[in-house]
Every structure is written in C-alpha cells, then in structure tokens.
C-alpha cells in the first residue's frame, strides 16, 4: 500500500469517527423530561412537575423510558416503578382504570412526593412512618 493510500484511508476513518461523535452530539441531545413530554399525553403541570398518561401498562412505560434514557438508579414497588436521573425523578404508577400515570419531578420535588418509597434509598431519610420502605437493598453492604 502506498504512503498516499495510508494517508487517504486514515483520514477517511478519522472523518467517519468524527462524524459519529458529531452525530451523537447533534441527534443525541435532549433529556428524559423532553422524551416523556413528546411521547406521552400531557395531563397537568405544576412548576417543574408534570404529569402524563399512557394507555400502556406501567412496566411497559417504565421499560421504554429506561431504554430510551438509562436511569442512574431505579426502584420497584408494588405501587409503581421509579427512575432516578441526575436532576429528575420519574415515577410510573398504574391508573385506576388501566394504563399508566407518569410523574416527572425535579429531584427535590420527586424525593418529597415519593418519600415513603425513595426516602431510605435515595436520600437522608430522617423520619419514620408506617409503610415506610427502609434502607433498601445494598444499604448494609
């Protein structure tokens, strides 16, 4: 292989790699909050908190959201699935009539809203109460 061929092929590969990086930076933008707002039906908003709904089951909705935007941590509870992101907490709970209700809150509001479930796992839980989910798995390791 000639020297010129090495240079040309090397530059082609470099450009492909750079294009991949650029593509991720352009098309990979967004966040879980945007994804949920575009994918599910809006119900109500209160400041940085928003509620959405879906006719799909909570496990399907939570799985889809986690597949699109991988959470840093997640919790299951008999009442719902909880996904934790850097600045947001997403909770997917069953609707009484079927389907799902999706709550998107910033970290502080989500922590307060779902305190009995996430308190001992994602924060400095300092209170007690009936039905509280305690230290969570791995807390003692």
């Amino acid at each position, binding site marked *: 292989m000639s020297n010129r061929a090495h240079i040309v092929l090397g530059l082609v*590969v470099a450009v492909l*790699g750079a294009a991949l990086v650029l593509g991720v930076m352009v098309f*990979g933008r967004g*966040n879980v909050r945007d994804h949920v707002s575009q994918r599910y039906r809006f119900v109500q908003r209160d400041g940085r908190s928003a509620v959405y709904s879906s006719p799909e089951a909570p496990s399907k909705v939570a799985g889809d959201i*986690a597949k699109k935007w991988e959470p*840093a941590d997640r919790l*299951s509870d008999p*009442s719902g699935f909880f996904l934790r992101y850097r600045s947001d907490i997403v909770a997917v709970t069953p609707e009484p009539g079927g389907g799902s209700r999706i709550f998107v809150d910033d970290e502080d509001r989500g922590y307060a809203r779902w305190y009995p479930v996430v308190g001992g796992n994602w924060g*400095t839980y300092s209170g007690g109460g009936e039905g509280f989910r305690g230290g969570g798995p*791995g807390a003692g390791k």
Partner: protein
Amino acid sequence: MRAASARAAALAAFLSVLSVAMAVVVASPAAALPVLERADAEELVTLLAEAAEEQDVCYGWRIEVNDEERGLPGWDEGSNLGLNRGPESCARFVQLVGRVRFTAESSESEDSASWRLETNIPAGPRTPDLERAGYSADALVGPRDDVALFNATLALPLLTAEAGVAPAITAEPDAQPVAPGDMPTGRSGSDWLRQNGEVLALGGFVAAAGLCWAGYGVVKPYFEGQHTNGRQDEQDGEESTEDT
C-alpha cells in the same frame, strides 16, 4: 485391634468437627441468604406481606447460587409468609425462581444467571413481563445483585395487577411530609453521557485510530528514506575501500 479402634475414634472425631463446621457455615446468615442481606430480606418479606394482603396473592423468591470456588450451593428464599418459606402453599402465588452460577477463576466460562416466574394463576404474569419492565437476570452476577433481586421481586405485585388477576395497589404521592433538612443524596453523573458515552467513546477511538493511520502514512517515507540513505552510505563506503 487397639489400632483399629484408635483409627475409628480419630475418624469419629474428624467427622464431628466437620459436621460442626458445616453447621456453622449453613447456619450463618451469609450462607442462608447468599444474595440479600438478612435485613433487606426481612424488609422484602414485610413489603410482600403488605401487597399480598391487599391483592390476596402470595409472592416470593427462590434463587439458587452455585459458587464453584466455595463448592456448596446456597439458597436465597423467602416470601410474604417469611424467610426461607416459599409461597406455594397459598391458593394463588407468584414466585421469582432463579439460578446463579459463579465459575472458578481458573474456569474459562463466564458467570451466568437465569430466572423465570412461576405461578399457579392461569392468566398470571409471565417472565417476559419482568424483562419488559427492564429487569434482566444478568444483573444477578453484577455488583448490585441484591438490588436486582429486591427490585425484581418487588415488581411482582404490580405485574400481577397488570395481568388483570389482582387489583392494582394505588400509589400515595405526598403521603408523608419530609422533615426539614431531609434531602436526596448521591447525585448521579450526566444523563447524556450515561446514555451516549459508549457511542461517543467508539467515535473518538475510531477518529484517533484514523489519525494515527494517516500519521503513519506521513512519517513512513522519512523512515524509509533514512533507511535507504543509510544503506547507500554503507555501499559507498564499501566501494571506496575496494578502490584503495
């Protein structure tokens, strides 16, 4: 005759020591619950009991752990009926049953894990429902195996409700006030990097490799030229020696 009885006594003593050691190993919490800490398992039992009471369905987990280094298999088992008790005695039950295999360091095969849902409810939840929610048995051989088992087991009541064979347990947001100063901790890294980091790293690696390749094409002639010039100098030197 005395030698034979002495050997028998020594054997009996050895067996008794061995049985005591085995009893200690089996009775220790770590051996009884190879995945979950005992406190976590007890908490899981409590939460499953609350769900079972509301839904009239029993829930449980049973994970067999085979560690080739340790040799002895271990069982992590429990249900809303208690630790080390399965839910099969209930009229309706759903149970997570799994197997984990940790291979020896000298072994070439990888650690592996599998699980499935067992239920006696005809239209009850199935294993794909668990995977659809984003839970995979592979997590049982990862560093957070306890979290994976805890979450997967605690998802059973909701999956059962989704299957339409039990009422859904309603969440109660804002059910309990947060004490002043109580706050979330352990903020995670960038969501964007977590989502795109692998592709980004791959693109960066390909770009760097391409640049190295092109750089090789640029510097190659200089090295070849030096080498050719060196050989030419040697040949010139030999010729001049012959002339003299």
